[in-house]
């Protein structure tokens, strides 16, 4: 891995954050350290999962990586070209534009056949012309995922993409994302509080301990996901639980 792009820029994601502080209402009081001493990297095409309890700073970290918040100490190096696809916790679609327009506005250079293929895979073909207000949350999430992939990202960021979907639907969406990410070899970072989601999707799992967020343990999954057995998954869960407990 780590194959450099033709222009020599590295294809990997490097995150090295010394500190991220949320200033309090007053200068001295209430300031909160959200992240402390957090280092990790992802090679090109790898899928990483940030797992930790709610409120431990996962989303904050994702926002730093996405460049939405630049107020931190440290360095973040995006994969070459740095084109991002991001699926936020809420779908964040434009309610006044159709499903297809929502994707095209973010990805004006995408080819028709690529968008059609994405829509087919994600079960959106029949909803191209719908306004987002007419969609269920599950469908709206799919549109957000189609949008994120249509830009052909160098890095795909997923912030709890399955939250508030029912179990079966979440499972199906997870399979679809896994298939798409694998087929396109997109470097992907997913934030989740659910260990099973991480095991189902990631090559590497970064366990975070909360407040301020720091790396507690890292798990590399060598087995291809398709060959993952129940026992192997259980063993990974045990390893993660033990790490979180210590």
């Amino acid at each position, binding site marked *: 891995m780590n194959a450099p792009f033709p222009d020599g820029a590295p294809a990997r994601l490097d995150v090295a954050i010394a500190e991220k502080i949320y200033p309090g209402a007053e200068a001295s009081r209430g300031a909160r350290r959200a992240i402390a001493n957090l280092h990790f990297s992802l090679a090109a095409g790898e899928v990483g999962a940030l797992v930790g309890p709610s409120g431990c700073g996962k989303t904050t970290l994702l926002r730093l990586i996405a460049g939405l918040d630049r107020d931190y100490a440290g360095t973040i190096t995006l994969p070459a070209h740095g084109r991002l696809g*991001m699926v936020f916790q809420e779908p964040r679609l434009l309610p006044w534009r159709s499903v297809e327009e929502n994707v095209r*506005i973010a990805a004006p250079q995408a080819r028709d056949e690529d968008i059609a293929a994405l829509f087919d895979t994600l079960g959106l073909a029949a909803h191209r012309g719908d306004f987002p207000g007419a969609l269920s949350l599950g469908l709206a999430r799919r549109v957000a995922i189609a949008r994120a992939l249509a830009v052909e990202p160098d890095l795909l960021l997923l912030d709890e993409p399955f939250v508030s979907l029912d179990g079966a639907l979440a499972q199906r969406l997870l399979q679809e994302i896994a298939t798409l990410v694998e087929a396109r070899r997109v470097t992907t970072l997913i934030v989740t509080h659910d260990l099973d989601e991480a095991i189902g999707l990631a090559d590497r799992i970064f366990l975070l301990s909360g407040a301020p967020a720091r790396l507690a343990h890292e798990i590399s999954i060598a087995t291809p996901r398709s060959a993952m057995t129940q026992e192997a998954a259980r063993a990974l869960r045990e390893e993660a639980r033990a790490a979180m407990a210590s």
Partner: protein
Amino acid sequence: MARILSLVALFAVWQFAALESSPRYLPAPGAVFAAIAQEAQSGALFSNLAMTLWRVAAAFVLAMTLGTALGIAMGRKPLFDKIADPWLVILLNVPALVIIVLAYIWAGLTEAAAIGAVALNKLPNTAATVREGARAMDAGLDEMARVYRIAPMARLRHIVLPQLAPYIAAATRSGLSLVWKIVLVVELLGRSNGVGFEINTAFQLFDVKLLLAYTIPFVAIMLAVETFLVQPFERSVSRWRPRAA
């Protein structure tokens, strides 16, 4: 149907009142419509209406464009808002007449002064309305646009303006009625044509018939603009909203 009956009743009251008073103070509807026909035949009605409508359109477009730009900037940039807000408050409270007279004194009795003065009267109102819209914009969509590096013009068209549309529509509705009323004052004070000028003439001659002969067609046109342009525009910008069954 109720609207039509109500209009008929209005004309009936007018007719009755005209019978009871001197035609010098209140001419009957028939006499006024005859005067409209006469002014139309001579062509004066149309040329004056056209002049006034052009001034309304020019001042309106100018005020809406600049006011919207100012409103967006003020709603988005707190520092700029702090600096520009006192100016806006002052401008909102300067009487229209003062702005008009000053414009004529400083820039002469010109078309540019007339249109500029009207636009300046409407501009702060638009800016204040659009600023509310800009403050209420969805920060999540803004972040989405940043992540996807959506180009500035596309952002304006697909993200900013649709969110501001209800505010712009409100400013349009209130703006149009404000602008055409002020245009008449501007014409009365410093132009040699237009509906306002004719109304001034009618005033000098104490000719209520002529005054109404210009007022009625003009009000009818503005109502038509409201019904056939402004309302469809409002509907088209809210077409995406899911309707309650």
